[in-house]
């Protein structure tokens, strides 16, 4: 009799424990977050991505009641950060500042230990930085027609700068050459700073680069802005027409940033994070802080973001193929 009660008690305890574990997995979001969250940034401290990460982390910390810590893990064309997050536990405690390189460009170009898009659960799209087509002030070109005409005269008389093989500036120029049926020499640089030096000096003719750091050179006339490679004109440079307005098709080559979690992260965790990000990006103080350095709020919820990623992946792959970038 006694032993039976013990048995029953033991069984009850076991069931209770089991029940506990079951409930805790099924409604993870209720207790989420119960520990600090790490937001991994694949770019170095001080850049646009870093600003976005830190600004959002601050608001998320307030909203979620747990510290959200930014960790910069630059290197290997974003592969170091992306691999780290792709392999992390899908529990919502490790998040990635996502961009075109993390999700589709680097996995194609480099021999990395993650596959790309399918390794991530999209949380939300957060921001974008417009890119601008600039030519050297020394080139004497003042309009897109000038540039196309010069490029058409003879192939490879002009050269374009990029920040590396398969980088967005490279792919933008590849798209440009496709749309205008021209060919130019590709000169890759280790970053946009040395590329700008050669653009200013007229050693290289054109480039698609992030607009904000170019602004003082455009204002001083050392660089000439010929078009915005984004769907809308840039608030920082309202007089410059978009590439699309100037007849270059759907020329959308903005640098976008989203937030992604490891694939398999529970839906309710994703939804909760998405909602918090949405609230953050509605705040004027955050929009202001980003806007000051030329970063535009560009919110898409997790399903729109997922759809965007899918269509971007195909488009970028096509461009990479025609750019003929080797692994």
């Amino acid at each position, binding site marked *: 009799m006694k032993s039976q009660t013990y048995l029953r008690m033991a069984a009850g305890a076991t069931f209770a424990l089991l029940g506990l574990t079951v409930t805790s997995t099924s409604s993870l979001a209720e207790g989420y977050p119960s520990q600090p969250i790490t937001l991994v940034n694949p770019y*170095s*401290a*001080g*850049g646009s991505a*870093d*600003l976005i990460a*830190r600004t959002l982390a601050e608001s998320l910390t307030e909203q979620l009641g747990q510290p959200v810590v930014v*960790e*910069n*893990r*630059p*290197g*290997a*064309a974003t*592969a*170091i950060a992306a*691999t780290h997050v792709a392999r992390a536990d899908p529990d919502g405690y490790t998040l990635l500042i996502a961009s075109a390189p993390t999700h589709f460009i680097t996995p194609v*170009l*480099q*021999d*990395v*230990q993650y596959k790309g898009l399918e390794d991530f659960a999209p949380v939300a799209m957060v921001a974008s930085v417009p890119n601008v087509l600039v030519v050297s002030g020394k080139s004497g070109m003042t309009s897109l027609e000038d540039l196309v005409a010069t490029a058409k005269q003879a192939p*490879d008389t002009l*050269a374009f700068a990029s920040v*590396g*093989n*398969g980088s967005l500036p490279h792919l933008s120029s590849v798209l440009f050459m496709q749309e205008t049926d021209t060919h130019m*020499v*590709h*000169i*890759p*640089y*280790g*970053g946009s*700073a*040395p590329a*700008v*030096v*050669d653009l*200013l*000096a007229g*050693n*290289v003719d054109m480039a698609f680069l992030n607009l*904000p*750091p170019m*602004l*003082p*050179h455009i*204002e*001083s006339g*050392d660089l000439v802005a010929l078009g915005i490679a984004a769907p809308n004109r840039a608030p920082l440079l309202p007089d410059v027409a978009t590439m699309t307005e100037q007849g270059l098709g759907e020329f959308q080559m903005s640098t976008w940033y989203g937030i992604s979690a490891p694939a398999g992260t529970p839906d309710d965790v994703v939804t909760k994070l998405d909602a918090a990000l949405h609230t953050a990006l509605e705040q004027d103080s955050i929009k202001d*802080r980003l806007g*000051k*350095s*030329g970063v535009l709020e560009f919110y898409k919820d997790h399903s729109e973001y997922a759809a965007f990623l899918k269509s971007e992946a195909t488009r970028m792959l096509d461009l990479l193929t025609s750019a003929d*970038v*080797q*692994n």
Partner: protein
Amino acid sequence: MYSDILLGFERALSMDALLFCFIGVTVGTFVGVLPGVGALAAVSLCLPLTYYLDPTIAMIMLAGIFYGAQYGSSTASILLNVPGTVTAAVTALDGYPMAQQGRAGLALFVTTICSFVGGTIAIVLMMGFTPVIASAALSFSSAEYFLIMALGLALASTISTGSQFKSLAMVALGLTLGLVGTDLNSGVSRFTFGRIELYDGISLVPIAMGLFGVAEILNSIGGSGSRTPQTGKISFRSMMPTRAEWRTIVKPTLRGTAIGTVIGALPGSGATVATFMAYAVEKRQSKTPERFGKGAIEGIAAPEAANNSAVQAAFIPTLSLGIPGDALMAFLLGAMMIHGIVPGPRFLTDQPEMFWGLVGSFWVGNVLLLVLNIPLIGVWIKMLSIPYNILFPAMLFFICIGVYSIDYQVFDIALVVGFGLIGLVMNHLGYPPAPLLLGFILGPMMEEHFKRALLMSRGSFSIFWERPISVVLLLLLLALVLMSLRTALMALLPTSKPKKDGK
């Protein structure tokens, strides 16, 4: 302009500016002393704080960390042969022998003074000629950079004592190690063995810390602690150079400053190249080059002046063109952009208060560093009286933390240990680590600029002699090579029985 300068000093001498300048340079000094912990890690940690500060004050603090670290970095390299930053590896070449001879106080005093002089002269040049220097920097492109790197390489074998062949072998090894990583032009990864940590090449800091710091610590294992620790009180008098020593360091300091300012102001080269070049030039033109590497006081004066002036001059392209020369400058630029300030050609006229306030604060900061560092010398030397079985494990610990803090990569710790072992073997066989480091720094830059110059010229080599500056550099390079050949031949010819140096 005078009113602008006055305005700047007024800003730099206001209470808040003084306070944050002091915080910056103090943090910088300590960060510099700790091996491997770079200024970049420190400024990244302070970045969130700057959101809430006035932009000028924020920049004053961040910049203070940056140049303060250069002051501090020579400390551990002189006392323990463990460089705080890569540039301080050069100071170790003569600074460490000086410490072993019991002249650590003097060495630290001289580095502080030379740092001050180098930094200050660079600031004066910056005040007077920023726009001129900035536009001159634009006439340097890949062809010129390639030739500057080639000049550095031609000087490379000079920087060590002992066998020239061993030095050259180490330069070659350094160049080879520099091949690791993704090729910028083709995107092909070379010798990475599928490790993503190697895609950007082997990191510089683990190599420098391994070959110098870790190797030195490993080397001391089993040693009887035969160092000459400076005992007793360090009097101010014992740190002061004698009249003759003052005379010896004047010219090297000025030459070092000149090299540092010119190379530092070019956005494509940086303080490390400048420091190595200053040392090599000093040794080359010395009448007694054999003293170098054995505690020659000029051997610490020139590179210290060079690295501090280079660090100050690096602000010229950053502030007047908006073009950062390295990761740290890029970071400072980013910190300004957070406040909506984009440095560029009009920064000087649009934001005179910020520009001159910042430049003024460099002055203030350099004076503060002088005041801060000289009394600290005694404290640092006391470090040597810590028993080595406590001091060295602590140093290893700091090296590992420092190297890890750069990119949060455990792989870098493995690298620092690996290069420590390699350094140990090299040390035993008499192969000097400095030429390896120089080859490793110059190799990838040379390759990149060589290829880019040829892309610009669409494949024609004439680009190297068609541009005015490149012609001058090319002639310099030729002269240097011919001179080296002559000395090599002279050494062979007259004495048929060559005296072998080394055993």
